[in-house]
């Protein structure tokens, strides 16, 4: 379905992504983990063609999308939706308009200028918002919503594109644990119910373990791990993050349960110390 061959991106002397290979045969949910600057975002941005590859190929169902230009490139971008860390919505427009932006590839500039979206699209946009549990915010301005709600609007915009692939670049990095969970669950549901492929950059291991079918580890632009979440041992994680033995998952976790667990552990230690 999606195949990436020797994909490389250089910024001057720096190599952001170094000959990355990746094959996705069937729809699944993939998590990419790695340190900041490991090249995770650059990979997603190259797939969506927000950034151009220096070398290598991106093939989607046998079609080479690496060097598309003009309307062919925009049509491909409509097929693979992108979700951003900072939501990248238009803050001063209402929620439904932001969702309707997902159909821009099919609309002329003239129709967009006079806000002439078809009624069925507007209904569908509200249905998608309802599916994500935020339909009641439909007429509000996007900037009036909380971070978690805004990210769900961004997901709704992605769904409005009816894409084959959804690329999510750190979708929960700016959210609190509760909202992070809602957003990740929404992405998982989209994968399971619609059969869309979701590729997700994550900065916490446990999120990747919990929601993804497959985990890819990147370090300094190279793919150093590609396997099932179960294969991702603590030793492997240290390897990916280049960390020493002090590295602890719970310390960076955004999962409510993990926090509860580490707090419980801390409480137990305190008790033990007190009784000693």
């Amino acid at each position, binding site marked *: 379905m999606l195949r990436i061959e020797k994909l490389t991106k250089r910024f001057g002397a720096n190599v952001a992504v170094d000959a990355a290979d990746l094959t996705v045969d069937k729809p699944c949910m993939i998590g990419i983990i790695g340190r900041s600057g490991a090249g995770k975002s650059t990979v997603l941005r190259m797939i969506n063609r927000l950034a151009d590859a220096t070398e290598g190929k991106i093939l989607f169902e046998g079609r080479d999308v690496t060097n598309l230009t003009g309307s062919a490139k925009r049509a491909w971008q409509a097929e693979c939706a992108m979700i951003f860390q900072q939501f990248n919505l238009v803050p001063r427009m209402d929620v*439904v308009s932001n969702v309707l932006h997902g159909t821009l590839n099919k609309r002329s500039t003239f129709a967009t200028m*006079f*806000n*002439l*979206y078809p*009624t069925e699209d*507007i*209904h*569908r946009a*509200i*249905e*998608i918002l*309802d*599916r994500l549990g935020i*339909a*009641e915010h*439909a*007429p509000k301005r996007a900037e009036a919503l909380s971070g978690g709600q805004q990210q769900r609007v961004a997901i709704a915009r992605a769904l409005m594109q*009816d894409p084959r692939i959804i690329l999510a670049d750190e979708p929960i990095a700016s959210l609190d644990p509760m909202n992070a969970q809602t957003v990740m669950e929404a992405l998982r549901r989209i994968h399971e*119910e*619609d*059969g*869309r492929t979701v590729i997700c950059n994550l900065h916490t291991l446990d999120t990747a373990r919990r929601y993804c079918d497959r985990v890819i580890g990147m370090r300094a632009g190279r793919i150093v791990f590609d396997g099932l979440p179960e294969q991702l041992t603590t030793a492997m994680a240290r390897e990916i993050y280049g960390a020493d033995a002090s590295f602890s998952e719970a310390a960076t976790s955004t999962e409510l349960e993990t926090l509860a667990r580490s707090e419980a552990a801390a409480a137990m230690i305190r008790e033990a110390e007190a009784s000693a």
Partner: protein
Amino acid sequence: MADISSAGTGIGPIQTSYMAMVQRKRLYSGLTLLIFILLMVVGFNTAASRNGGSFWGGLPNFFDYPSEVVAEVVEKAAALPGHFVTYFPALIETINIAAVSTLVGTVFGIVLSLLGTRGLARYPRLIPLFRRITDVMRAVPEIVIALVLIFVLGGGPVPAMLAIAFHTAGAMGKLFSEVNENVDLKPVEGLRSVGATWSQQMMLGVVPQVAPNWLSYALLRFEVNIRASAILGFVGAGGIGYELKNAISWGQGRFDVAGAIFIMLFVTIVLVDQLSSHYRDLLTHGRQAKD
């Protein structure tokens, strides 16, 4: 691809009310567009009926004058370098008027803008006063001030400089205060917390943030002022405008001089534009970014 599972039951009313909102918005924008077109058509017809000649009748002759100028300039192309040398001092005088008036006007504009910006003003209650002052300064056309000053002080570059500086201060006060409104107040608060005076807060907390935008507006204003000071030459304020007026109005074979002056003005504007983008870059990205 599975269809959207419309699980919600309360979604119908939301859709209906949103559609109603969309319809209302479309109605309003349709009406606005209609009124706009109507005003344009009516206004055009009114203006055309008051015209001495007919607009459509005069249109074909529109290019007669410029083409005559261009033809004459091309014909006497050999004389152009001589004209450049002759009128260069006048150009320098014009640029001088523009530069001095931009500098003086910008300094006053900065003070007025800081005093007239909500959140930054020294005397918040006087904000409306300072805003009205800039309004008045902008409302009076330069040429009116220049004519009055020429009457009082006699012809020459000084009245032109004062007239342009006055207008510039008003325009810059307005533009700068709009830039100031987007300023991040945290550094200012930080400076207030150490006991800095108002002018210290402005100088160290606000100016570094807004300097690139101020500079680019000031340089744009410099361009505008070069043109303004050329125009003021028409009413006797000296500089290249005076020469241009003579060349262009006495007609009879002096279009080559007019052409030479136009070329000099054009080159000057291009140079100012290039310089402004260069220095703005330097200010935003810092010197080390260049190498």
